[in-house]
């Protein structure tokens, strides 16, 4: 065996090792919340979903009832705000790509996606929370919607861009005005792409933590309306995992399980749906 083939073997081994390392890291990252969390949920049973967190140091972890409600409402509200805006911006950027406004909107959306999401939280804190003098579900939803907006824009634009030019010509040759071509032909043609965009928006809003840290409040024991403080699953994990009480740490593990499970399944669905788009 000469020097060159030894070098070759060593390099190959290093590459394989780093691949194995990544696989192990991802595997342990996912398996920890799945295994620990699942055990907590099985032990706690149904009350995990229907009660509030137990007192510190008690036997049982209690439950995540109000956090679930807060999550669902806040995420839906943020998607309801961001998706229409993102949809129309995506359509505009794709259809009028030559115009200055479209170029500007595209760069702005790109820039928004690069901004660390904690800054989005601070921004809403400064303009909304300080003005209303309290953290609230709406404030949380607003900061989440800023975080998911750029993803919606890109997704909608892409799902229009991949439609072959010939269908646009077909619609145009029948005398469809441009806006009818977009909304009656192109959008329905790739409804799947648009829906994937909607789903990714939900996934993004579901897993974002930083933007809601200062804006959503931390109400785990009750529901205080849209303009009152609320909480999301990542917030619950953040709040309870760093306490010294074992039952609260368990509560955080259980919530992590749900976070991991939902994000993994949503992203699998998205991956599968995106792969199948074909014309």
């Amino acid at each position: 065996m000469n020097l060159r083939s030894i070098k070759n073997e060593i390099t190959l081994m290093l590459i394989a090792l780093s691949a194995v390392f990544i696989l192990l890291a991802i595997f342990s990252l996912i398996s920890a919340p799945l295994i620990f969390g699942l055990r907590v949920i099985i032990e706690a049973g149904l009350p995990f979903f229907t009660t509030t967190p137990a007192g510190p140091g008690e036997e049982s972890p209690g439950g995540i009832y109000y956090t679930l409600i807060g999550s669902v409402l806040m995420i839906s509200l943020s998607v309801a705000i961001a998706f229409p805006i993102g949809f129309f911006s995506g359509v505009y950027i794709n259809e009028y790509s030559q115009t200055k406004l479209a170029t500007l909107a595209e760069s702005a959306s790109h820039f928004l996606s690069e901004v660390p999401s904690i800054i989005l939280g601070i921004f809403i804190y400064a303009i909304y929370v300080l003005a209303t003098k309290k953290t609230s579900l709406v404030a949380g939803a607003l900061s989440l919607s800023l975080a998911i907006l750029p993803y919606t824009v890109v997704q909608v634009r892409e799902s229009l861009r991949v439609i072959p030019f010939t269908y646009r010509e077909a619609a145009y040759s029948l005398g469809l005005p441009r806006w009818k071509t977009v909304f009656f032909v192109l959008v329905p043609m790739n409804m799947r792409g648009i829906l994937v965009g909607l789903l990714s928006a939900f996934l993004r809003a579901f897993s974002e933590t930083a933007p809601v840290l200062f804006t959503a409040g931390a109400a785990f024991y009750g529901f205080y309306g849209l303009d009152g403080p609320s909480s999301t699953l990542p917030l619950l994990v953040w709040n309870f995992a760093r306490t010294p009480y074992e039952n609260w740490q368990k509560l955080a593990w259980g919530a992590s399980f749900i976070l991991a499970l939902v994000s993994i399944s949503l992203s699998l669905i998205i991956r599968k749906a995106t792969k199948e788009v074909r014309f």
Partner: protein
Amino acid sequence: MENPAVRIQNLNVYYGNEQVLFNINLSVPRNSVYAILGPSGCGKSTLLRTINRLIELRPEARVEGKVEIMGIDVYRELPREQVARLAGMVFQMPNPLPHLSIYDNVALGPRLHGVAKGRKLDEIVREALEQAGLWEEVKNKLKKPATSLSGGQQQRLCIARALALRPPVLLMDEPTANLDPVNASKIEELIRKLSRETTIIIVTHDPEQAKRVANRGAIIFKGKIVKENFIDTLFTVPYHELIQKLTMEERIIVEALQEKR
């Protein structure tokens, strides 16, 4: 020519700074088939798309000159959307809208222009499908997606879709280029039949096809009409020899220009 179906006068077309059509003048007689021939990239598809203003889909395109369909100046006297009622179009790739049924594909034009509804629309769809020679094959599955049809059927569906608005002119951009010979000959037969009531302008790179279907034609080379006549006299010099000769001349001119520099 008296009352031609399409009259093109002093037409110049540019993509950005590049000129792609040079001073085109031609007249297409009514109820006939007119062939536009030429090698790839010579501008024949662009010419076709200039007639029904489809070229406006490309923002960098600029059109100078005049195009009349049935005596109406399509660039000055009509909004773009209405041109579809004067000229239907069939494309090289069969492109029925994949999310719509067979029926809805044909009904799309009449619906959008508010031509008909209900029973009357059914009638228009049926008539268009009959004209395209597709009715017998699809009459029992009108609600099926258009993509369930074979390639040849899809192309005839596209012809029906274009005919549903009853345009006096039908533009066809290499309509048989993606079909097998059997389906291609069906389309050619259809073209001859349709030309009794409709004026058809067909772009093709196949001189044999032009001879089979057309009454008259033009040969385009590098954006200029090099020959225009009745189809029998169009090919006094065989087409391929002509193109070869033109290509050769072009090369000599280009080389001469380069040497000058």
